[in-house]
């Protein structure tokens, strides 16, 4: 279980995050939403231990991430960041196998078991047939799936994703989000996912956290958080929310 306890972050006089409290349970998809520049990506960096908050702490099962080594952190938390740079000349399978780093130490070699884990992750993200290709030859969407496969190969129970569907077309968007939901509901992964698209958040998340002006505005089930009242206030324009005609989740109309 990932907990963010009263996280604050300040650079000089600028407040990036103010007293953020969040709890991510096992088997849960928590969507982090909010306007541009409210600190969503920063919160992800803090939640994976890559950035130390000014106050508060990010902890996994009660252990502060700042007290863990990079190996120990990576075995607990895997990250799919936004707009990642990937070296072009490595093959897909080599890139995915890098996800095993936390288990190999500085001097370890990949075993057959590591390769099986990587291949399973490639199958789940539908990139098996790309295995031998150079990453630089792939489309943005394919590269995104390579990064997700690498994160799965890391076999960490907590998955942090920063706009993982940003470059994807509708089909692959649905594929990835179905996969994410399956991981949480069927295999007990905890997923914290930054989504720009409020309707995707409504459709796929169990919980939604709405970030506004460096602080949490609301946390709860999608229909409690994605209300015209909250959204109009946070986004600063009049927003309507209706029930989705097919599955009944909130449908946001701006």
């Amino acid at each position: 279980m990932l907990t963010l306890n009263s996280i604050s972050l300040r650079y000089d006089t600028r407040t990036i995050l103010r007293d953020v409290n969040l709890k991510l349970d096992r088997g849960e998809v928590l969507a982090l939403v909010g306007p541009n520049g409210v600190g969503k990506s920063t919160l992800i960096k803090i939640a994976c231990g890559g950035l130390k908050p000014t106050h508060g702490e990010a902890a996994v099962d009660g252990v502060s991430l700042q007290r863990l080594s990079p190996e120990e952190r990576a075995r607990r938390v895997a990250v799919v960041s936004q707009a990642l740079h990937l070296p072009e000349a490595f093959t897909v399978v080599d890139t995915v196998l890098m996800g095993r780093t936390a288990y190999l130490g500085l001097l370890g070699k990949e075993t057959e078991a590591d390769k099986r884990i990587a291949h399973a992750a490639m199958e789940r993200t539908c990139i098996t047939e790309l295995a031998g290709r150079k990453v630089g030859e792939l489309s943005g969407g394919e590269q995104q799936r390579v990064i997700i496969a690498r994160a799965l190969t890391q076999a960490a129970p907590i998955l942090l994703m920063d706009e993982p569907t940003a470059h994807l077309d509708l089909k692959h968007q649905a594929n990835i989000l179905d996969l994410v939901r399956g991981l949480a509901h069927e295999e007990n992964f905890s997923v914290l996912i930054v989504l720009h698209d409020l309707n995707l958040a409504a459709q796929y998340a169990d919980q939604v956290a709405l970030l506004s002006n460096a602080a949490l505005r609301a946390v709860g089930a999608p229909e409690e958080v994605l209300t015209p009242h909250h959204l109009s206030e946070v986004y600063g324009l009049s927003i309507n929310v209706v029930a989705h005609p097919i599955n009944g989740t909130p449908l946001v109309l701006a």
Partner: protein
Amino acid sequence: MRPYVLSLSLLAFALIFSIGLGAVYIAPLEAVRILLSRLPLIQLTPDWQETSEIILFNIRLPRALLVALTGAALGGSGAAYQGLFRNPLADPYLIGIASGAGLGAVIAMSVEFPTTLLGLFTVPIAAFVGALLTVTFVYNIARVGKSAQVTTLILAGVAVGSFATALTTFLMLRSQEQLRRAIGWLLGGFALGGWLPVAALLPYLIIGLAVLILLARPLNVLQFGDDQAEQMGLNVERVKMIVIVAASLTTAAAVAFSGIIGFVGLVTPHLIRLMWGPDYRRLLPLSILGGAAMLLLTDIVARTIIAPEELPLGVVTALIGAPFFLYLLRRAKQEMYW
């Protein structure tokens, strides 16, 4: 397997060819037989002149080995630095080794030392110390807390390097009678002969290059950038630190005896990458073998092209290396190899 067989054969060919060439020519086959005769369990009736054997063992072989070891050191640490700095322009001299070694050597040359054994070794020792002091200084300047940013390291290296080079130039102009010797050293010249330099260089090389080869996988992971590498569980700062120490020791030891030979450390890893891909688990050992073979071949040219005079090796590496590298770049411009 094929890349290793290929580069090992190239290295063997270059070595045998190199020890045969000189004022007294020793044919490759004869050279091989003389070498083999020194191995235990092999019985060969000597049908060669005794002088050939003496020349081979006391002059040619130690020199060829020193050249090969220098090439190996430059190729290996060049590959490691390119990986560490994720920069195709990186070479073993990027963070101040060459300028530091140059300053140390020129300071030693401007002092008249007695020609005892220790006196003969003052230039290499001063170069070695100068190189390591410079790198340590650069690393500490670039360090903030526990981490050293790659960009800051490079910039600090360039600044400190320019400063040291300026001092070196000043010292050289002040002591004109040593100018020629200093320039010769700076361009790469193997002033010291015999087995002693080989023996002095070997331990640094074996340890340094072994460490770099062992860290090949972490170097692969580092290609994704510090943030991603750390998120994948790599102790980024520890890897950086170890690679810098290992590559610097290796390079400093090589530079101490052979002067500043450019281009090999830059080009060899690119050549290997163009041919066999970016994976450091292959790239590092192949750059080491390739660097050794390349420098030996260049040395052959340097010794023969205006024989009996010798060109400084650093001049020849760039004269041959640059056009060859440009040709390869043209051919490979469609390919993603970095």
